[in-house]
């Protein structure tokens, strides 16, 4: 499902060149639930960005579901991202002017997934799947942190992506809510969706299939 070959990423900063990722080689299978673990600044988020097509490598190849994405044009990359990847962010990043259900329908609008009339039904079923269906027509600001993250997960699943990437998805949640959110990811993976989570939470070990540790831009 995911194949990273000789992947490197350098950032040009006013202080000079900084290597965020160094010669990364990594394969992740379909339906695998992988935890990307490392300290702050180790390169977890950069690696996640490479896999999700949010950023481009300086050298190397990123192949996701047999598509090499590093050379895709911006427009095609956006379309690919919308159909293939679901993102979950640490601060939920729900769009504040859309209701919970509208936040989930938005990726469907972008990608033209399903006929227009069926989108709400699907969005509601996704909200039901993450247990917040009764919050469907509320604005994000009125939801608790846990509820917002559940909506964010439902949004990530909107286009039935083959891959879900989550960057510190439980970093802003209490432990009970965090546990329940991780279980949602587990369920997704069991159902065949590849899930990669960047985290430094130790309790994730019991839920994920595999741990990939990164330090100073290199896999350990």
């Amino acid at each position: 499902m995911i194949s990273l070959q000789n992947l490197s990423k350098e950032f040009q900063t006013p202080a000079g060149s900084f290597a965020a990722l160094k010669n990364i080689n990594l394969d992740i299978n379909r339906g695998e639930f992988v935890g990307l673990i490392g300290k702050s600044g180790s390169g977890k988020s950069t690696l996640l960005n490479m896999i999700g097509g949010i950023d481009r490598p300086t050298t190397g190849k990123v192949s996701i579901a047999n598509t090499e994405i590093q050379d895709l044009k911006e427009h095609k990359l956006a379309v690919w991202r919308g159909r293939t990847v679901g993102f979950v962010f640490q601060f939920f990043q729900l769009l504040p002017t859309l209701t919970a259900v509208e936040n989930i329908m938005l990726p469907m609008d972008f990608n033209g997934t399903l006929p227009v009339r069926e989108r709400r039904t699907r969005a509601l079923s996704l909200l039901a799947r993450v247990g917040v269906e009764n919050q469907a027509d509320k604005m994000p600001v009125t939801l608790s942190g846990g509820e917002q993250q559940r909506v964010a997960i439902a949004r990530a699943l909107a286009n039935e992506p083959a891959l879900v990437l989550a960057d510190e998805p439980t970093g802003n949640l209490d432990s009970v809510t965090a546990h329940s959110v991780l279980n949602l990811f587990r369920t997704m993976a069991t159902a065949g969706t590849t899930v990669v989570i960047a985290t430094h939470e130790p309790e994730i070990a019991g839920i994920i299939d595999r741990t990939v540790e990164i330090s100073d831009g290199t896999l350990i």
Partner: protein
Amino acid sequence: MTTGMHKALRDFWQERTRTILVVLAIALGVAAFSSVMSSYAILTRELDRGYLNTNPASAIFRTDAIDDDLIKAVLSDGSISDAEPRRVISGQIKSGPIQWRNLVLFVVKDYGNVRVSKLEHEQGSWPPAKGELLIERDAFQVAHTKIGDVVTVKTANGVENKLVVSGSVHDVGQAQARMENIVYGYITLDTLELLGEKPYLDQLNILVAQKRFDENHIREVTSQVQKLIEDHGHQVRRVDIPAPGKHPHSDLMGALLLSMSSFGLFVLALSGILVINLLTSILAAQVRQIGIMKALGGSRWQLARVYLGQALLLGATATLVALPLGMIGSRALCRYMAVFLNFDINSFAVPVWVYLLVVVVGIFTPLLAAAFPVWKGTRVPVRVAISDYGVSQASFGTGVLDRLMAGIGGNYRPLVMSVRNSFRRRARLALTLVTLSAGGLFFMSALNIRASMINTLDRLFAVRKFDLSVAFSNPQPVEKIRTAVNKTPGVTGSEEWFSTEASIADKESIRRSDGPHSSSAAGLHGGSENEDRFSVVALPPDTKLLTPEIVEGRMLTSGDADAIVINTALARKSTLMRVGNTVTLRTGPVDTDWKVVGISRETFSPPVAYIPLSFIQQRHPGMANNLRLALARTDSDSIDSLKLQLDKNLESEGIRARTAVSKEDTRFAFDQHMIMIYIFLIVMSVIIGGVGTLGLMTTMSVNVLERRREMGVLRAIGATPRMLALIVLSEGLVVGFLSWIIAAVAAWPIGKVAGDVIVGLLFKDGMKFVFEPIGLLVWLLASLIFSAAATLFPAWRASRSTVRESLSYQ
């Protein structure tokens, strides 16, 4: 330089695009203000100087033939410094096959020694030889002629003569010929004789020796001179005392400049709004920085100084940009006004006080505008400031309006998001809408005022059922007039009227007039509130060619003997002029009592009274001095040929027409005055629209900046760069649409008030308000185009950011 100033500069550099936009907007406001203030200083100085350089007459006596003895006698009076005779006669002029134009001929005895109300030689011969005619420089376009052409001229005696246009003069004291649709010509006594007129001068222009600008003193001197003239056996028919030292149009120019000054201040205030928006957004984006600076020990005042310093920089930079722009604008405005008022500007030097005022206003307006956002922005507690994070920092969804907005859905979420995004920063939205709506408001008001003026003029002219007005110098036998008319094909109706002048009897016989030649220029400026003389028109019973719009009382009827109907302009002149009152009017040497029976609405008209023709017929039985004709065909060619035929027929009856003016010609002069207001308002709306567009551009660019992380999220979940640009563009269009709604709603009341104020200032009259629906459509398109143009750049910027950059934006 302090660390604070370094920060202020670097913050601006970081946000240079927006900074430039705001500087431009402020500069536009300051430049507009500076243009108007400079123009005010230049025009008032130059107009007065130019006018005073001509030695304008202190008083003008209209008497009979003036001889040298009389002039010597007048000059021997120590209170008179100079006296010079002239003559002013009406006539008509024709260049080639072009139709006859109204002509006012000024006869000067000695062009080499013009000392009072001086003329300025421009081109060609000077003085004009016998058979030559000089034309006022602005009148060439009216006369359709040029130097060297041979024109046909006729005076009241009807004899046509060929004269050579030998040069041009500038007569500062005259109203713009193009606007009045009159040709001003200048000839010698020899040429006057050639035209078949007796070669004498009957107008004496005097200059008082002392206190030239003291009207009371001038009145005293004028009384002495009148007595002196009469003691020499001459009859004084009329005395005019122009406002001392004041150009006849200085009030008009003052009103125009007042309107423009208000507009300059308004634009300046609008650009201040942009400063509020910019600094509010800068402070909002720097909440965390403010928290950190406070944590490091910075006091609120220290932080405020940094941001007030930014406002100071904005103002100073904008003022630097605006000053040269303002001077350029001022020169353009001065030139336009100089052409409009027909005077020359010798110096464009701007007084120091204007520069100082512009610098103070340019620097302090942004500072003032910045005060509130800076005070508010620096108030944020440290704890709140450093906890600022994420896309959901704006608490959209908690207010009533948010919930209402949430209820407005749609099948296309990106558009729904655009609409709701517009309402996220309400204060910013409100301020942006103020600037954008103002442009629309002015534009629609301009169209409404134009439509109202046209409608008012339509109504004014609709009551005039005649198409051609013919005036005779002296009363003529009605029977002969009718014979001539009956022989003229194309006339569908005719009436013989009698017009004269009157004044309220209990006032002094010496009256103040608006201009040195007020008897000649019967345009919109002919009647002033200070002038007591007014026209009296004697109408036949049950006239068919005039159906006045009676607003109070009734029109004259066939049984009336001492009834008088006055128009609204006359009703405003005196509290005595009320329906039911009896007023004593002086017509010539006779005082007569009249009962006011009605008031007619005649907007933009000078004061006029209508009396029964029977009153005149008692004094001039079977005579008339005016003819009104209704015609079958009213195109200018048909009217011209009818005029020719009528002239011949009148001549065969021994009658000479002094003037023949078609309704279209009269309407043209009115329309020319209205165009000035219309253009002024349109220019205002374009400038304000420009400031509004810059404002929206700033707002959208701030909005995009604040939502960069949100943009990243959108990109992460599949939005293409084009889609992102469309979302931003739609938001801009929503704002544009909202501004249109506000402008559309406010256009009616504001347009009416603005129209009344402007027309009241310029013409001392009101108008019938009409709403122009096409303005709504035009401004809808314009506001959408402005909004799209203003949003394109921010939208492009939004679509250009990479997802990673956007997501990592702090």
